[in-house]
């Protein structure tokens, strides 16, 4: 079976400076891959390129059969298959500040997948509960702790049920107890058959929880 995500000689330049040069990696279903390296080495850039949030200059990205080519990012209308395949958890979570935790999760269910409000709320409540933030459904993002906000953000990214989940520096704001809980969550997700690509500079976390480490 082919890889869920295949990055082939990815190069990104800013003002003719190479931010990423020739990165190649693969993530299979059920696999946790850590993308390691110090800050500023282009880990986030690689994730953003996979999520089609930024253009790249050379190479090729294929997500479960959907290919991205170098050049400008295509319009959203041309990215529908990609959006169904890739979920992204931002480092700063980027929860929608005008929506409560539950509505952050139901937004895509209702407006992208076309579920009814009650359907979406049921799915979202289950997701939040599975991530141990079921009691925080009515809270505003500003009322959540860092760990809670991250789990709501994971729930939001998982809501459309993408096979590939990208996470940017997920341990940055977590205390040790929360880090091991996050590790358990990641294993649970991989057991469900998802592929995970984790950008992190946290060596210990990467060694402890990733199936494979790619160092930039």
């Amino acid at each position, binding site marked *: 079976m082919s890889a869920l995500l295949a990055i082939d000689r990815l190069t990104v330049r800013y003002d003719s400076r190479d931010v990423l040069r020739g990165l190649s990696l693969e993530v299979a279903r059920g696999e946790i891959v850590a993308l390691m390296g110090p800050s500023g080495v282009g880990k986030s850039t690689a994730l953003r390129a996979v*999520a089609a*949030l930024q253009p790249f200059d050379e190479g090729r990205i294929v997500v479960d059969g959907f290919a991205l080519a170098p050049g400008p990012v295509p319009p*959203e*209308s041309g990215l*529908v298959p990609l*959006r*169904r395949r*890739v*979920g*992204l958890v*931002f480092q*700063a979570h*980027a*929860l*929608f*500040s*005008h929506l409560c935790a539950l509505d952050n999760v139901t*937004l*895509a269910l209702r*407006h*992208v997948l076309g579920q009814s409000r009650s359907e979406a709320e049921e799915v979202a409540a289950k997701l939040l509960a599975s991530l141990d933030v079921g009691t925080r459904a009515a809270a*505003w*993002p*500003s009322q959540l702790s860092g760990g809670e906000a991250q789990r709501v953000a994971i729930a*939001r*990214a998982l*809501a*459309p049920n993408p096979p590939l989940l990208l996470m940017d520096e997920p341990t940055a704001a977590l205390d040790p107890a929360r880090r091991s809980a996050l590790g358990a969550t990641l294993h649970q997700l991989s057991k469900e058959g998802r592929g995970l690509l984790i950008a992190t500079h946290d060596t210990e976390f990467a060694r402890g929880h990733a199936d494979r480490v790619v160092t930039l």
Partner: protein
Amino acid sequence: MWGGDAEGGAPFVEADPADPARVRGFDVEVAERIAQGLGRRAARFVQVQWSSIDQSVERGDFTLGLSGVEDTPVRRARHAVTIPYFEFREVLAVRPADAARIHGLADLRGRRVATLGATIAYDLLVAARASTGLIPLSYDDDVHPYADLFAGRVDAVLLDHIIAQRALRRAGGSGFVILTQPVALGYYVGVLARADSVLRDSVDAVLREAMRDGTLEQIFRRWDVWDPSQGALFDRVVRTAGGAAGAARTAGTVQAIAYLPSLARAAAVTLLVSILSMLLAVIVGLALASARVYGPRWLRVATTVYVEVIRGTPLLLQLFVIYYGLAGVVRLPAFLAAVLALGLNYAAYEAEIYRGALEAVPRSQLEAARTLGLSELQILRLVRGPQALRFALAPMTNDFVALLKDSALVSVITVVELTKQTAIYATNVGSWVVPGALCAAVYLAMSLPLARLARRLERRWRPAT
């Protein structure tokens, strides 16, 4: 030193075409004759808005107000008023087609009748509203009532015969006819500060002398406003020593309570104009802001030009352009023109607020929405718009309160709103104290609850970082 309004124009007071720094007119010459009679060397002219002559003379801006100032009981009660020096007739002007049917105010049921605000003529129309059902319209000048009579926006104009004849001459003698039967008679007087009654008596003596020695008649003949009724007036005035020769026959003393219904109606007009204008401003502003944020280059340039031109030119000018300037193309009713001008003006400011608010929404929020698969339109509707609304709320409230007060400007195109009605009220009672306080209270009563509502909404939508 005397004061008058050169905007009133010939034959009263106008800027001298040969030397625009000087004024000429029969009132100018009457003022000079008075100065001469008092032994003053020259009469120095002070420009003042016609409706503010009483207040200015009381403040001491000048000694004598003289510019087609009407003799009214209120004015006599509040200020030192001279003997009348000219008798005028309030005459109706109608379009030639209506001349056969209209003979007086009684024939104007349901018709729109224009005049200058804060005059005897306006009081006559207001008094006739109840009995004849005509619709009085108040203008800030005495030229546009006739312009709107030509344009069909009004059906008749009631004004002093001198003004009516001048308008007819300017129109080349056609376009409307002046009914021969006057609606009422009135007198022009000079007005001095209440404390100046001694000086007033001296001015009266000079005026009587000028009536006796024929200099006043010469002045009126030179300006082509002499007629036999002036001679009769002179005889009456010269015979009676002192006292009122006869104030205009208008409705009696005006009481504050009588103005409350019209103030309430004017406040409703202010509120309605403001709400409709704001609604228009929000809709157009949203469209402009979206075009500036999302549109192609040419659209961005076009909307930027619109915003800068509208913000960079006076609202007053825009009102005139929309109401009078466009009259040749589309003859907008005054109320609609007011809402359009205010709405389109404020749209420029709203557009800037919304653009700023849209751009203030963090990029990460938009990217998060994209990764979820929302379309650009959905992102605007579900994420960017609602968040921008919070940023926009405070400046929008601010703008609406400003708009509430700016709506006073629309009185220049005959919409009688709160400030205009207050000015009319103040002129009639001869004081700004009570009307001013009432007006301020009504404005506050409209703006304060709004500010409160906005604060409450802001609290509820407390933006999270």
